[in-house]
């Protein structure tokens, strides 16, 4: 049996040999032919030469796929991020971030557009992402995976957690209903109490040159967030841009570093 298998290629190998040996396939897979024909070394090279896989380790230790240890929470966080990206882009086709249109656009996305569930997928996906990021962090903490050599990646992870929460926060305003407006009012008002940067915060009185106050109600941390003294149309636009462009851009950079460091720090941590 073993001998036969060694001599005769399997069905995928046969298909691969007949389909994969042409100039187009060879130009895409520089390692040579379709992946089905690759030997051990070529498979390694295939991973190294692939832009999507190069963040990924060439080989995975067996423990890395043990759900009981990792809970797969890091992978699920990334998966929910992908879902949120796709549904978010689709929602942008129908949503206008203006005081006149925002709320009714949000309602229409549920009622007048096919797959009215799209916004709910985005909303529940966001809740799930926050949850899975927290659980991922909990797992990493409980398994001691934050210890050297992974201490830098833990810091990157904390930044990613913060960015996730900021994405959740900025997205909260976009429905532009009473819940959103007052939630963001409460949230941004906390900025008033920032040390030195909020006009009600400790040290704010120190932030002045002579008689000129540098931090006051029209120029402090909360004002920067709201683009005004209260949550208005300017706040909506600001949060929209941050939610759709700014924060996703930053979080993707940190995610790339995070994944790359997982590999460079010795792969996914395992039971000792």
């Amino acid at each position, binding site marked *: *049996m*073993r001998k036969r298998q060694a001599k005769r290629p399997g069905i*995928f190998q046969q298909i691969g040999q007949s389909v994969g040996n042409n100039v187009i396939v060879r130009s895409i897979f520089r390692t040579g032919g379709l992946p089905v024909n690759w030997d051990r070394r070529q498979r390694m090279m295939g991973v190294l030469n692939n832009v999507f896989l190069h963040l990924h380790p060439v080989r995975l230790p067996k423990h890395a796929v043990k759900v009981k240890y990792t809970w797969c929470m890091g992978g699920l966080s990334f998966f929910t991020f992908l879902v949120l990206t*796709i549904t978010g882009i*689709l929602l942008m086709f129908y949503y206008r971030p203006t005081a006149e249109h925002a709320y009714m656009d949000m309602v*229409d996305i549920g009622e007048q*557009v*096919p*797959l009215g569930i799209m916004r709910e997928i985005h909303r529940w996906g966001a809740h799930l992402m926050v949850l899975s990021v927290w659980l991922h962090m909990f797992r990493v903490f409980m398994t001691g995976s934050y210890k050297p050599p992974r201490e830098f990646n833990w810091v990157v992870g904390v930044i990613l957690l913060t960015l996730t929460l900021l994405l959740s926060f900025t997205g909260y305003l976009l429905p532009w209903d009473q819940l959103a407006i007052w939630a963001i009012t409460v949230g941004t008002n906390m900025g008033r109490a920032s040390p030195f940067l909020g006009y009600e915060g400790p040290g704010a009185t120190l932030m002045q040159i002579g008689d000129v106050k540098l931090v006051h109600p029209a120029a402090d941390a909360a004002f920067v967030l709201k683009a005004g003294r209260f949550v208005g149309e300017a706040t909506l636009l600001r949060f929209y841009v941050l939610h759709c462009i700014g924060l996703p851009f930053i979080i993707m950079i940190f995610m790339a570093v995070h994944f790359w460091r997982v590999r460079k720090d010795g792969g996914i941590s395992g039971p000792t």
Partner: protein
Amino acid sequence: MSEENIEEMSPSKRKMLAKLGKLPAGDQAEASTESEMAETTEDIGDIEEMSPSRRKMLAKLGKLPSDLPSKSRPSKTAAPARKTPTAAKSTATGEVHPLVSGKIKRSVKPKLEFKVERRGWLSLAFGWLAFLLGGIPAFATMILRFLFPNVLFEPPQSFKAGYPDDYTIGAIDETYKEKYGVWIGRTDKYIYALSTVCTHLGCTPNWLSGESKFKCPCHGSGFRKTGVNFEGPAPRPLERHWIGLADDGQIIVDKNIKFQREKGQWESENSYLPWT
């Protein structure tokens, strides 16, 4: 392992070791393990006379004496059984099992692993089939459908344009130009609805009442009051829309139906509304 006292081991550990073949044959409690040991001592025939492939197979299964030069490299799954049957027999005397000193790691059930390897492509193939034929088209269809809303927030293609007598003979009415893209003109014999789309490249011409012509600002095409082109690059007259009377006596214009003069359609019914 060999240093440990077998008598002092816990039963479960002894059982496990027995499975791995790390115990002297005499101590093995498991009947199955005993039968495996019995297999290793079966008569395998004349080694010299057998075919190379059979010898290779036997070597893999560990049924060949180790001193025999084996042409094939033993596979990893068969590694623990690599030792010779004679060596196994010698353990019956109570000496330390030679296997114990070897590296015994990925042992036990090569047959099971083999099965998985052989039929693994089935689940792989079904998985990919389901993904390629089911998942991707389903998602693509959903996303494509999402891009076509069920409700349009734009003016309807058909609208009521007031009563025929509201219009002046010889004038062009621009009331519905902005919203519906339609001019309504009246002659002494009929009323007609002109499209405001220039037949050159689709701009919107202006009605110049002083010169009594439509003039397109983009490339200078000119149209008579009737819609017939006479200057500039426009290749054909403006199009007319379906026009009729509703039950309440109002004019109805339907932009879904158009009439082109160069096709002789301006003579058709409802391309104009007879009204004197």
